[in-house]
């Protein structure tokens, strides 16, 4: 998927210009790149490294430290299951198990068909609806283990 071309794409150039000269802008640049591509592709990091004159290792050091940045393309549908305390108490670990079983993937992985990506997140901020899972931002509250299959098949059908 990633081409290894070293020519700089125009988007990256504009972005770099926007942040050039501002101190400590690397994380903000990475945010914008991830918003654009859905993840941070390696060749983009490479271009960034040349443009900003920062060693690639420095960029990777930051990307791999923070949970938010992804190095692999996400699935078409991102399933985020909340494991905040309220959800944990009300049975969210069961939901994680169920999704893992149904899709045969682990946390942070994408299913083989590229359709679903499973993320376990800290808090979606709707503790009153615990346990909560979201698919591409659509929130499902008070989810029971037996309902997971139904939710997923809805998206499978849509595809």
């Amino acid at each position, binding site marked *: 998927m990633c081409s290894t071309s070293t020519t700089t794409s125009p988007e990256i150039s504009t972005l770099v210009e926007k942040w050039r000269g501002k*101190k400590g802008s690397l994380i903000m640049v990475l945010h914008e790149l991830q918003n654009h591509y859905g993840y941070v592709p390696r060749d983009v990091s490479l271009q960034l490294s040349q443009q900003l004159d920062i060693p690639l290792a420095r960029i990777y050091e*930051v990307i791999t430290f923070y949970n938010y940045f992804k190095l692999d393309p996400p699935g078409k549908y991102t399933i985020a299951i909340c494991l905040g305390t309220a959800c944990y108490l009300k049975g969210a670990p069961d939901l994680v198990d169920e999704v893992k079983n149904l899709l045969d993937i682990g946390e942070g992985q994408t299913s083989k068909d590229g359709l679903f990506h499973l993320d376990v997140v800290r808090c979606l901020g709707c503790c009153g609806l615990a346990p909560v899972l979201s698919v591409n931002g659509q929130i499902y509250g008070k989810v029971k283990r037996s309902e997971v299959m139904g939710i997923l098949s809805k998206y499978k059908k849509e595809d």
Partner: protein
Amino acid sequence: MEKPIIFIKDTSLTGDSSREIQTQLLKVAREKGIEDLQVIRVADLGIYDKGVALKICSLDIIYVNVKLSDAEKIIQTTIKEGTPIEDLLLENQAMQTRIVLRNCGIVDPESIDDYISRSGYASVGKCLFDMTPETVIEEMKKSGLRGRGGAGFPTWMKWNLARGSFGDEKYVICNADEGDPGAYMDRSVLEGDPHSVIEGMIIAGYAIGASKGFAYIRAEYPLAIERVQKAIDQAYEKGLLGKDILGSKFSFDLEIRLGAGAFVCGEETALIASIEGKRGTPKPRPPYPSDRGLWDKPTIINNVETLANIAVIFQKGAEWFATIGTDKSKGTKVFAVTGKVKNSGLVEIAMGTPLRDIVFQISGGCFVPENKMIAVQTGGPSGGVIPEKNFDTPVSYEHLIELGSIMGSGGMIVMDEDDCLVDISKFYLKFCVDESCGKCAPCRIGGYQMLAILEKITAGKGTLEDITSIKRIAQGMQKASLCALGQTAPNPVMSTLRYFESEYLDHIEKKKCRAGKCTKLLKFTIVPEKCKKCRLCVTNCPVNAISGDREKGYTIDQEKCIKCGRCFDVCKFEAIARA
């Protein structure tokens, strides 16, 4: 007389009849010739399970359990004549005191004019023109405000240290990297009243002599980021940010920096590293940020809730603020009460309110009415549990520390008898292990080892020596870790050991989990008398551990069983026993 406004909200748990009453109120008002009455349906009044509630803004009173038939009387007596109706008045109205959340749900967060119309930015004017930075700090000292991020360091002292440090540039940072699982106070303030935080930052900047501020916001809060950015843009337009604010010669710039999902970045020095565009690893202190912080310049870092308090202090006076709360803990605290309570939500109480009032009065008690509450957990992964017998303790920094917990940023998780405290401790410790940045060994290795011991205990393989080991590791982590994350990571385990050691002993000696949460200690069996032989469990078992036939009945092979509990969930006849 000012325009009469009524806020209305149906606080009952079933249905919503606020719309009918709203229509009725407006109808009656028109009949009586009151044309400018506004009845606004709001999302939250901080009251729960009390039928339809009305807040009469002109008199600042609240009516509860309002019926359709009361509309006539309310308009006539209260709105026209201005006298309260005793029968409808809410008792204990002073349960919640809203200072930080004063504007949330009331002002339009995307309109600076709306904020200004409620005395917004008046405090900036007052500080810039009538006060010197020294008197601003003096006023903060009088108010007694302490940091709301967790540790409770006096805010004025932080400011004073930074003011005293020499630097050609100084910085103000707003810590909005709210990462505590189960806490969302900061998010609500940023989304509901972003200008109050900006106002606090401008005043802080003036007090310490900074000309630049950063709002460090968690990337997971897109709406908060959007609203704060909009608020910053509006403030620049009005000349409240930028060069020469309101013509006072004081300049202050503010920009947003995003977090990227690292809990450790809530720690001051790690947060600074993150703003500098580096990995968020903490540094040894001293030097403290007030001396050498962001890019080695004097820096103060204040939490969102702390900053949201500042404008009010200058508006109503430090003396007023100091009358709220206890001796050493002034003002209010916002808690996100979640877990096994009827009404999960944000609660703002004056310091000194007993925990029992928060849990039972404000949040409505246990979710399952027949269950017994056993404890609340405050302070998230750095805090501890407070058992039910201590619920009468007033909430303040000192009292919570005495009980082995901390105020923390404001998460409050209520637990009932269905929760296993060993499991909860494991949950929090796992959180800290996942989030440990790995820089220092006590936190990285200690946390991992302690978690392994807890895994062992909850799997029924624990021994009594394990408890001693946990205590030794905890001591090592508390004493030798570089930052607060490692130092406080053992707190949940230590405090559950302090109050609920018997639960640990049950897991170790009797191989039993009282709440049935530690599934590896469970045994699933089929009760022949209840079994209808529907085979639902057989088809659902992922490891084919259930065998038999319709004549002889079914049994679970304990060797094969992985204790996933699916048979228990799917059985419609309660024929699976879990013990």
